[in-house]
C-alpha cells in the first residue's frame, strides 16, 4: 500500500474531471424542457430557493426565447446563478418540491435551465446590470467568496464604492478552492467572478488578510461600513490518536490542491478512508477515486436518514465505486513507521434526538479496523476564531452573531456567509450577502 501520484494517463484524468452535469447542447433542448414548466403561482420551487429566484419567471422567459430576460431574472436574485446551477443540492431545494414530484414525475430541470440562461449571459458577456450613481459611500468587504461578492454587487448596484479584501491569491472563496472540479472548474469560477465584478464600482485586493494586514479598526476609519464574509477556518480536528501520522489529510486542502495543481502531481492512496458525509466529504471521496485511488470508503457515524449530503451527491459517490459504512465512527488512526496503516472504528447505533432533531449516534462497544494508507478528514471546518481583535463578536461555537439587521455588536460592521451560519451552501451565502448589503444600505441611510 502506497500513496502515489501519476496513477492515470492524461486522457483518463481529463475524462474523470469533466463536467458531470453537462449543459444543454442546444437552445431547442432548453426550450423544450422550459415548456414542461406549468408556471405555478406562488411557486413551491421559488419558495424553496434560499435566494428566492423567480423560477417560473425565468423559465417562462427561456420558453419564449428571451434568454437575456431569463438571465436577468436569475441574477437579480442570485448573482452567482451560474455556480449555483452547478452546485446547489437542487433535489432538496427547488427541484425537490416541483409540483411534478407530487405526480411522481420528473421535476422540471430547473438547475440545468438556470445554467443554460446564466451561462449564456456570461459567455456572451451581456451587460445586465450597471453600477448605481455614486452616493459617496464606501464599504469594505472581507472575503471574495459568494457572500462577499453578492454583497459587493448589490452595494455597487446602489451606488456604493466597494473594496473587497481577499486573503487568497484568487477570488471565489470555496467556489474556487473547495468544490469538486467536475462540478465547477477553477477557470469557470474566475470567469464568473470577473463577470460579477464587471458591473464596476468594486475594487478587489487579493492576498490581503484581516487580522494580519489590517484590522477592523483600520477599516472603520476609512469606510462607512464593513461586511465580514471571511468564511471558515481549517478542517476540524478529529481529536483521536494518530491524527498527525503521514497519510492523514484534511479534505479542503486535498480539494484545494486538485483545483490549483496539476492533477497528475496529486498523490492518493491505494486504500482511502474519508471521514464524514457532507458535500465536502463526497467531493473528496469521488475525487480520490477519480485520481486513481484503488478503494475509497466513506465512514459516517449516523445513518442514511441523518446524512448531510444530498441523495444525488451520494449517488455520484456510489456510482464512482466508493464504499459507504453507516453508523461508523473513527476512534483511532493506526500507523507504522509514521505512516497510516489503518483506521480503528466504533460501530454505532442511534440514540436520542439532538437539538437539530436528528438522532444521536451512541457507541455499541464493538470496534473494528479498516485497513488503509490514506485518511481524509471531512468533518466540517473550525470557525476562524478571533481574527477581529477587539470585541468578541462570536458565540461559543465561534460563529459570528448578528442582530435583526444583520449587524454584529460593532456598529457599522455587518456579516454573512459561512462565518455566520457555520458552513452551508453557496446559495445561502449569496442570500446572506444580499441581505447584508440591504441592511448596510439601510444603515448608510439610503
Amino acid at each position, binding site marked *: 500500500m502506497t500513496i502515489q501520484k501519476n496513477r492515470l494517463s492524461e486522457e483518463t484524468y481529463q475524462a474523470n474531471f469533466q463536467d458531470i452535469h453537462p449543459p444543454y447542447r442546444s437552445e431547442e433542448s432548453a*426550450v*423544450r424542457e*422550459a*415548456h414542461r414548466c406549468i*408556471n405555478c*403561482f*406562488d411557486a*413551491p420551487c421559488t419558495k424553496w430557493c434560499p435566494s428566492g429566484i423567480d423560477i417560473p419567471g425565468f423559465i417562462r422567459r427561456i*420558453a419564449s426565447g428571451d434568454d437575456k430576460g431569463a438571465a436577468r431574472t436569475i441574477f437579480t436574485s442570485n448573482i452567482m446563478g451560474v455556480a449555483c446551477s452547478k452546485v446547489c443540492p437542487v433535489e432538496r431545494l427547488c427541484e425537490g418540491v416541483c409540483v411534478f414530484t407530487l*405526480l411522481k414525475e420528473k421535476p422540471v430541470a430547473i438547475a440545468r435551465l438556470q445554467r443554460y440562461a446564466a451561462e449564456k449571459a456570461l459567455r456572451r458577456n451581456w451587460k445586465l446590470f450597471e453600477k448605481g450613481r455614486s452616493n459617496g459611500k464606501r464599504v469594505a468587504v472581507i472575503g471574495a467568496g459568494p457572500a462577499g461578492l453578492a454583497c459587493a454587487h448589490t452595494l455597487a448596484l446602489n451606488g456604493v464604492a466597494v473594496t473587497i479584501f481577499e486573503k487568497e491569491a484568487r477570488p471565489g472563496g470555496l467556489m474556487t478552492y473547495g468544490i469538486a472540479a467536475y462540478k465547477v472548474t477553477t477557470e469557470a469560477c474566475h470567469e464568473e467572478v470577473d463577470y460579477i465584478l464587471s458591473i464596476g464600482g468594486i475594487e478587489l485586493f487579493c492576498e490581503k488578510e484581516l487580522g494580519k494586514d489590517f484590522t477592523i479598526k483600520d477599516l472603520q476609519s476609512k469606510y462607512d461600513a464593513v461586511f465580514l464574509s471571511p468564511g471558515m477556518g481549517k478542517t476540524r480536528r478529529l481529536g483521536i490518536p494518530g491524527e498527525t501520522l503521514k497519510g492523514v489529510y484534511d479534505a479542503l486542502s486535498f480539494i484545494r490542491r486538485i483545483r490549483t495543481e496539476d492533477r497528475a502531481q496529486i498523490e492518493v492512496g491505494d486504500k482511502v478512508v474519508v471521514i464524514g458525509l457532507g458535500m465536502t466529504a463526497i467531493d473528496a471521496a469521488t475525487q480520490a477515486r477519480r485520481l486513481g485511488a484503488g478503494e475509497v470508503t466513506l465512514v459516517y457515524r449516523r445513518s442514511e436518514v441523518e446524512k448531510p449530503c444530498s441523495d444525488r451527491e451520494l449517488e455520484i459517490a456510489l456510482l464512482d465505486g466508493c464504499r459507504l459504512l453507516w453508523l461508523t465512527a473513527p476512534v483511532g488512526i493506526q500507523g507504522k513507521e509514521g505512516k497510516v496503516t489503518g483506521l480503528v472504528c466504533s460501530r454505532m447505533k442511534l440514540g436520542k434526538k439532538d437539538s437539530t432533531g436528528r438522532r444521536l449516534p451512541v457507541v455499541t462497544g464493538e470496534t473494528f479496523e479498516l485497513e488503509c494508507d490514506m485518511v481524509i478528514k471531512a468533518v466540517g471546518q473550525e470557525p476562524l476564531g478571533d481574527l477581529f481583535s477587539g470585541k468578541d463578536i462570536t458565540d461559543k461555537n465561534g460563529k459570528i452573531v448578528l442582530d435583526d439587521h444583520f449587524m454584529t455588536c460593532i456598529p457599522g460592521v455587518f456579516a454573512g456567509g459561512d462565518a455566520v451560519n457555520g458552513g452551508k451552501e453557496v446559495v445561502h451565502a449569496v442570500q446572506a450577502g444580499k441581505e447584508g448589503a440591504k441592511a448596510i444600505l439601510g444603515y448608510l441611510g439610503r
Partner: protein
Amino acid sequence: MADLRSTFLGITSPNPFWLASAPPTDKKINVLRAFEAGWGGVVWKTIGAQIRNVSSRYSGFSYRGAGPVGFNNIELISDRPAEVNLKEIREVMKAFPDRAMVVSLMTENNRESWHELVKKTQDTGVHGIELNFGCPHGMVERGMGAAVGQVPDIAAQIVEWVMETATIPVITKLTPNVHSVVPVGRAVVEAGSNGISLINTIQSVTGINLDTLVPRPEVGDHSTFGGYCGAAVKPIALKFLTSLAQDEVTGKIPISGIGGISTWRDAVEFILLGASNLQVCTAAMLNGFRIIDDLCEGLRNWMDEKGYKTIDEMVGLSLPRITRWEELDLNFHVVARIDQEKCIRCGKCYIACEDTSHQAVSLEAGRPYNVYTIKEEDCVGCNLCKIVCPVPDCITMTEQRKGAEYLNWSEFQRRNMPL
C-alpha cells in the same frame, strides 16, 4: 365490431377518411402511398387553371413548444398539366378500385371552361367532383377559388354550369373566409350541388421572422396571406359545419367535414355535428400517412365502446345540443370542486380566478405547498379553473341548480323577472 365502411353521395370507401385536396394528393406516387397505408379515399389536388407556384410555401404556428398546432400555405392548385394528372388518376384507380376517387376542379369563370374540365375529368371514370370555391390565395386574385365562394350568385352560376354536364356526384367546397357560410351554401345547394364540403383554409399570417421582419412563409423579402389549417382551426370548422348542418336547406344534403381533423376524437366530433365523410390533410402532412391506422382504430374502439354500429347512425347526433343562447337554461348552475387528493398545489386555478374571474378560489398559505379550495358562494361556474388545471379530473364542475324549472332568457323576459 363497428363497421367503418362509408357511403357518401353513393361513393363507397372502406373508411370515412379521405385525404383532402392538397399537396398529399398531388401526384400518383403520394396517393399510392396513401392507399397502401389504408386511406379510404382522396380528393385529388385541384386541377384546371394553369398556374405557377412559389418557393417557399408553408409556415407553421407553434404554441408552448407543442409543434405546429396551426399551419398555413401559399401553394396554389396543381402546377402540372391536367392531362398528366388525369392519366395518373386512372392508374391509381386501377391499382385501388375499392377506394374513393374524387377530383377537385377549378377553372376560369365561363361555361365552356367548366364544361370542358368536367367532361374530361368524368371521362376518366372518377367517382365524384369537388368544386374548389375556397382557395384563399393566388386564385382569388384571378377571380377563382374563394372569390367565387364568397359571392352566392357567382357560386350558384358555376354550379349550374357544372350540373349541366356532370354525370357523377358534385361536391362544392366552401370557404370559411365569409361572415356566414349559409348564404353561399344555400345558393350552391339550390343550384344543384349534390354535396358540400368545408372548411377550406382561413386567410392568415402565422408570424414574422423577427430578424428580417419578413412575415412567414418567406418568399425572398416578402410574404402573402396564406391559408390557415391544422388542429387550431378545428373549433372554427365545427362552427361552420354546425351552421350548415342545422340549416333547413343545406342541412338536407350530405356534408364532408374538413378542418383540423387530427385524431379520431376530432373525427367523432365532426360526425356528431353532421359530417358523414371526413377529409384530412395537415395531420397527414405533419405525421405521414400512417396516422390512418390510429384514426380508424380509435374511431372503431370508441364506437364499440358506445355501441354504435355504423358511421351513418352517428351523423348529427350532437346537432340538437347546439342551440341559440336565449334557449339556454338560466337555472342551470355549476360550481367548481377541487379534489385535494389529486391537487398538485400549482395555484393556477387561484391566480386565474383571482386575476381574471370571480375571486372564488381561496388560498391557505403553506410551505412550500399552499392549499386551494373553492368559495362556492362566489363561483359562477365559468370553467376557467378547470381549464387551467394541469391534472385531469382534479377540478370537477358539480351541478347546483338555481331553481328546479327550466328557465330561458326569452321566458325570463316574458315574465319580466328582475335582473
